[in-house]
């Protein structure tokens, strides 16, 4: 079965990638200044106290021993304990995953819903106002700093006009859906639709501004890629043949030209989605969105290595999964690869 073999091969490669990421982090620890104990012990701690804390955290052993222990631990699913918090790194990191995924997907949806029609319009109406407008919008979108947009949105839309909450994520999508599908002692609890709708509204209202902030760069990039892709596709001979068949222009644009344009865009989309998992630091900070990005930055600032390693494992796995999904989607969209 081609798909089975494909997934197996990519799965193994995925494990290698994640292993590569963890090993890279350990290598970097050789040269990274700053000692985690500085943040666990008080600044004026005595040398013995520092030594004790270092021993307790296992930092007194040489790095390769720590590496070996870490990998063995990993195999047992144990990501070690956060230096600063004393709790399992895995619980801290995994608690952040839903928020990150929600924001990344929301930003992508915002981008796709806005960018693709915009790209198509500016491609089909070249050198008309729509084209100039879309081009300038996408260029400004690409070069707007995230935090600037975020803070301005909060100041204007939330504080001045009170249209949106300023920040925070009171409820996750998962909990909202759970209202519908909770199973209590074996049998499905009665669906609490009211709570679900209420939860959904709160979630949507809170994710709106962060998704737009994070999605803007994304939107601009996809608009430009869609535009240049569409221009190229509309120039292909099969489009003229389709017109010869009398097909309506919108069908030609969306079903024929756009689908072929999207094939290369899907890979870029996948990669961008990947970077959003660990990369949405600034948006998460501005909107107090408990995602992986801020966790990584805060852990790096205090050299909390188990948390850094845990986050990178999750980010790496996310990357691998998205890449596999993107390649599979690429094959589905592009028959020449599979058939």
């Amino acid at each position: 079965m081609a798909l089975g073999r494909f997934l197996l091969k990519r799965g193994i490669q995925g494990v290698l990638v994640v292993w590569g990421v963890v090993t890279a982090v350990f290598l970097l620890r050789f040269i990274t200044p700053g000692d985690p104990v500085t943040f666990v012990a008080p600044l004026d701690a005595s040398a013995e106290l520092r030594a004790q804390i270092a021993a307790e955290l296992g930092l007194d052993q040489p790095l390769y021993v720590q590496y070996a222990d870490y990998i063995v631990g990993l195999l047992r699913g144990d990501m070690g304990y956060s230096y600063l918090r004393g709790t399992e790194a895995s619980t801290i990191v995994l608690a952040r995953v839903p928020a990150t995924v929600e924001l990344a997907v929301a930003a992508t949806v915002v981008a796709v819903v806005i960018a693709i029609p915009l790209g198509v319009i500016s491609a089909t109406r070249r050198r008309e106002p729509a084209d100039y407008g879309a081009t300038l919008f996408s260029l400004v979108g690409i070069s707007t700093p995230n935090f600037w947009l975020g803070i301005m949105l909060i100041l204007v839309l939330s504080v001045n006009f009170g249209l949106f909450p300023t920040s925070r994520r009171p409820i996750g999508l998962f909990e909202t859906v759970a209202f519908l599908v909770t199973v209590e002692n074996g049998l499905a609890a009665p669906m609490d639709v009211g709570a679900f709708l209420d939860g959904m509204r709160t979630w949507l209202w809170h994710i709106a501004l962060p998704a737009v902030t994070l999605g803007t760069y994304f939107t601009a990039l996809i608009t430009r890629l869609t535009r240049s892709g569409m221009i190229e596709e509309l120039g292909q001979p099969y489009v003229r043949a389709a017109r010869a068949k009398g097909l309506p222009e919108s069908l030609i644009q969306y079903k024929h030209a756009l689908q072929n344009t999207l094939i290369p865009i899907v890979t870029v989309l996948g990669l961008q989605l990947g970077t959003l998992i660990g990369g949405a630091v600034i948006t998460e900070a501005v909107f107090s969105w408990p995602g992986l990005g801020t966790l990584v930055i805060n852990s790096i600032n205090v050299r909390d290595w188990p948390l850094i390693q845990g986050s990178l494992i999750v980010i790496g796995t996310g990357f691998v999964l998205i890449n596999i999904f993107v390649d599979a989607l690429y094959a589905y969209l592009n028959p020449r690869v599979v058939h």
Partner: protein
Amino acid sequence: MTDLLRVRDLSTRFFTEEGQINAVENVSFTVEAGSVLGVVGESGSGKSVTGLSLIDLVESPGKITSGEIWYNNADLAERVEGDQPEAVDGDFVDLRRLSAAERRSLRGSAFSMIFQDPMSSFNPSITVGEQIAEAAEVQRRASANPRSTRSRTQGYGLGKMLLDGVLPDRSYTSEESWDRAVELLERVGIPDPAERAEEYPHQFSGGMLQRAMIAQALAGDPDLLVADEPTTALDVTIQAQILDLLADLQETMEMSVVLITHNLGVIARVADRVSVMYAGEVVERGTLRDVFDDPVHPYTKGLLGSVPDIDQPGERLEPIPGNVPDLVDANMPDRCYFADRCPKAMTDCLTRPPEYEVSDGHRARCVLAEREYSEADAVPDERLAGPTDDGAGPNDGSRAPDESTAPDAEVSDD
């Protein structure tokens, strides 16, 4: 034989950076119902653009600047008479006066077109069956409610496409048009059409795909099929099969065909009437016998002269010296465009020749139709070295024979 199509003084021009290119220049011809009109000429003679102009597929920077295309369609005439009386003459309707939307509605139903390279004429990521079914679907929806062009172009937006992406890709096409597609594939002689319909273009051979393209063109049961070099990209044996298929389809479906090619052999085999095009103009037209057996225009003779005759295998071929002009309006001389390459160029040729009638239906745009050639009136070469010679074209004016691009009358795939 009633006429299906009467083209009067059709001109199509391209407004590019290099200047205005007169691709088609006051072309007139008629297509009889149920007959095959061969349009022949070297590449760059404007024959493809003529084809495209017929079904209104000339894209920017090209535009049809003048001329009328009278299409014999009784109920269309009746329908159009209401709001555009001047566009109707008896059963004939001048397509140029119709709105773009109405012209588009004729594409696929009244006229359809097939192209030279089948592989690039199909969307690589959609199955062949689906693409043919699409053509059928457009017609089905059109016939379902002829009134509104809107229904035919009923919106297919992003939402629909996303839905399409999720559902199997038959959502635009109905079950019925899918069956029609399979039936068409069978009609054009493609073995086990149901399975082949599920396959993608790159899984078809060149010949098979050309058949599929023909099937697609027949989806709307058109009155006229424009075929632009349909066989050029195929090897000889397949070419013959395709020509037979075209001939057979043409009879069974009472369909007229405009066959555009540079290959005289193909014309000889299939065409009932012939139009010879040179530099955007129809220099000679008439029945196959008129043009092939009794050619008047030196260019037609030159073309025929460069075709090996099976009966006289040893005969030396006579190539036509010089090159086709580059049709840039500023460079076009105000005389017979062929004069500088014409062995029988005379002073009379220095003015634009009208179209003389040689015999009933046989016309030629050359003075020789009226008078005999006489040495006395011959025109020395340098006088003819008009603007065409120093044009930006690759030729440097010298007419060394070996340089001439003899029309490859050979039936060979290039």
